[in-house]
C-alpha cells in the first residue's frame, strides 16, 4: 500500500503567542515548532499499516523552510521519503487554498491511501483532509481511530459524539482524517534519526503546483479572546491560596 501522510508543523503547545504588528497573525519569531498532534497519530497509523502490509509511506508537508525539521522527524520515525511544498503564505490561504496545494502534490503520486490529522492545533479548521478528498474525487472518512485493510478496500472505526463509534467500509484509494488516541505513538530511534538524513526529501514550490485562488474566507484580524466570566485570581503561597479557595467555595460560591 502506498500511503501519503499530510502533516503540519505548528507552534509548540503552550508556546507564548504574541499578535504581530498588523494584527493579522502571530509573531513567529522565537517560536518553537512541533508536529501537529493528530498528524502524529496519522503518521503512526500509516507506519503500522506499512509494517502489516508492506508498501511505502510518503510524508507531505507545506510551509516555509523551517518545516524541514518536522519532516525529518517523520522520516526518523520511519517514513520512506518526503515531499516539501515550499509556501510562505499558509496563514493567508484559506482551507481550500491549502488543500489545493496538497491535492496537486498528491495527484501525480497516485497513492492508495491519504492520511492526515483531524485538525491543526493552530488554525483548527479541521477541513483540509475532507477538501483534499473532494478535490481528488476520492471517498473519505473523518475522525478515524482505526484502519483495517480488507480485500476490497478499508474498514475503519469512526468516532461519533459522546462516546459513540461507527464502522465504515470504503474502497481505496481513499482519504482519512485521523483522530488522536487510536494508537500509541512511537519515538524516533537513534538509528532512525541517522537514516532520515539519507532519505529523499523532494521540494516543490507552491507556484509549480498551480496558481492560488484568492481566499474566500479571509482572516482579517486576530485578538485575545474576550472573557466570558469575571475570574477571581487567588494569589499567595500554595497553602494560603488553598485556604482562600476553600473559604470562597464554602461561603461565597456555597458549593462545599
Amino acid at each position, binding site marked *: 500500500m502506498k500511503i501519503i501522510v499530510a502533516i503540519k508543523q505548528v507552534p509548540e503547545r503552550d508556546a507564548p503567542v504574541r499578535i504581530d504588528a498588523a494584527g493579522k497573525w502571530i509573531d513567529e519569531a522565537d517560536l518553537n515548532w512541533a508536529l501537529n498532534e493528530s498528524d502524529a497519530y496519522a503518521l503512526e497509523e500509516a507506519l503500522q499499516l506499512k509494517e502489516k502490509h508492506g508498501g511505502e509511506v510518503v510524508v507531505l508537508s507545506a510551509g516555509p523552510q523551517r518545516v524541514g525539521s518536522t519532516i525529518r522527524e517523520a522520516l526518523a520515525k520511519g517514513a520512506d521519503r518526503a515531499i516539501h511544498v515550499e509556501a510562505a503564505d499558509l496563514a493567508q490561504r484559506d482551507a481550500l487554498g491549502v488543500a489545493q496545494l496538497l491535492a496537486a502534490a498528491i495527484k501525480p503520486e497516485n497513492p492508495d491511501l491519504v492520511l492526515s490529522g483531524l485538525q491543526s492545533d493552530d488554525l483548527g479548521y479541521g477541513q483540509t483532509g475532507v477538501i483534499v478528498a473532494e478535490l481528488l474525487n476520492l471517498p473519505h472518512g473523518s475522525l478515524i481511530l482505526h484502519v483495517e485493510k480488507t480485500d476490497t478496500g478499508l474498514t475503519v472505526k469512526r468516532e461519533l459524539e459522546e462516546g459513540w463509534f461507527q464502522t465504515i467500509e470504503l474502497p481505496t484509494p481513499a482519504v482519512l482524517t485521523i483522530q488522536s488516541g487510536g494508537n500509541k505513538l512511537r519515538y524516533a530511534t537513534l538509528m532512525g534519526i541517522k537514516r532520515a538524513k539519507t532519505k529523499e526529501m523532494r521540494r516543490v514550490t507552491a507556484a509549480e503546483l498551480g496558481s492560488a485562488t484568492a481566499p474566500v474566507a479571509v482572516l482579517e484580524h486576530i485578538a485575545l479572546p474576550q472573557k466570558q*466570566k469575571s475570574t477571581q485570581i487567588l494569589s499567595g503561597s500554595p497553602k494560603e491560596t488553598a485556604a482562600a479557595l476553600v473559604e470562597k467555595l464554602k461561603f461565597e460560591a456555597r458549593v462545599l
Partner: protein
Amino acid sequence: MSGVWVVLEERDGRVSSINWEALAAGQRLGKQTGLAVNAVVLGAQTEALAAEVAAKAVTKVIRVEHALLSSYTPDGFTLALEQHFRSDQPDYVVFPHTYQVRDYAPALAARLGQVLIGDVIAIGDGPVFIRQLMQGRLSGEYRHSGAGTCFLSVQSGAFRADQAEAGTAAIEIFAPTIDAAQIRTKPGQPFRGSAQTVDLGAAQFIVSVGRGIKEADNLPLVQDLASALGAELAASRPICDNGWLPIERQVGSSGQTVSPKLYLAVGISGAIQHLVGMKGSQCVVVINKDPDAPIFEIADYGIVGDLFEVVPALTAAVKTAKQ
C-alpha cells in the same frame, strides 16, 4: 441569491439543541442583513422534522428527501445539498457544528468553489464571523469575500436555542437525483465504545485533570483531592488518549458532558472540545501554571501556580474544612 438557509439534522427522530442554536444564528444573520431565513431538513423521511421546523420563524422549509439519505453518508448529503443549493443559490448557509457537518460541509462548500467558516462562536457587524485559533488562546475575525455563498457552522452553546423565534412556514419538497453507485462509503450502525460504569453527568463534584499532570504516576495527587472532596475524577482527552484513565472519564465533545456544582480543572489548558463538555458547570475552579491558558476565561476562581504544590495544599485544606 436567496437569503439565509439553515441546515438542520436529526438523530433517531430527535433534533438536538445545537440545531435550534444554528437556527437562532441564522435568524440573527437574517435580521442583520435583511435577508429571508429558510431551513433545510434532509433524510429519507423528513415530514415530522419539517413540521417541527415550520413552527419557527422561517419563510420556508425545504424537505430534501431521498431513500438513499436514510443513513448519513458524506457522498449522499453532499450531493443532495449541492443540487438544492445550485438550484436556489443562497447568500448564507448556516450549519450546526456537529461531527456530521464537519464530515461533509467542507466538501460541499469546496464543490461550490467556497470555503466553510467553521466553528463560529459569534457573529459581528459586517457580518464578521468570530472563531477560535491556537486552541482557544486567540480569537480570529473572518469575513467572506466574493459574490458566492458564505458557508458557516456554529459551535455548540454559542447561540441560544431558546432564542430561535417561533412562527409559521411553508413546507416544500426537493427531490435530489442520487444513484446508489455515487455513494462510495458504507456506514455501519453506531455503537457505544465500552460499558459505561461511570456517570459523570450525574456527579455533583468533579476534579478533572489534563496534560499538566505530566505522568500517569502523578495521578494519585489529583485522586487524593477528588477523594477529599467526594468528587469523581475526570480528564481531558490527552490523558485518556495516553491510556492513563479510561475513556469513560473523558469530559468534552468526544466524551461526556457534565454540569456539576463544582468543576475543578487541574492542568487543563481548555481547548474548545473540552470546554463544550463542562461549561454548564455551576462553579469552575482552575489550577494552571500558565496565566494565559484559555480555561481561565470561564473560571470563577483561578490559581496560577504549580499544580504539584497547589493540589496537595488544597487537599489538606479541604480535609481540614471537612473535619
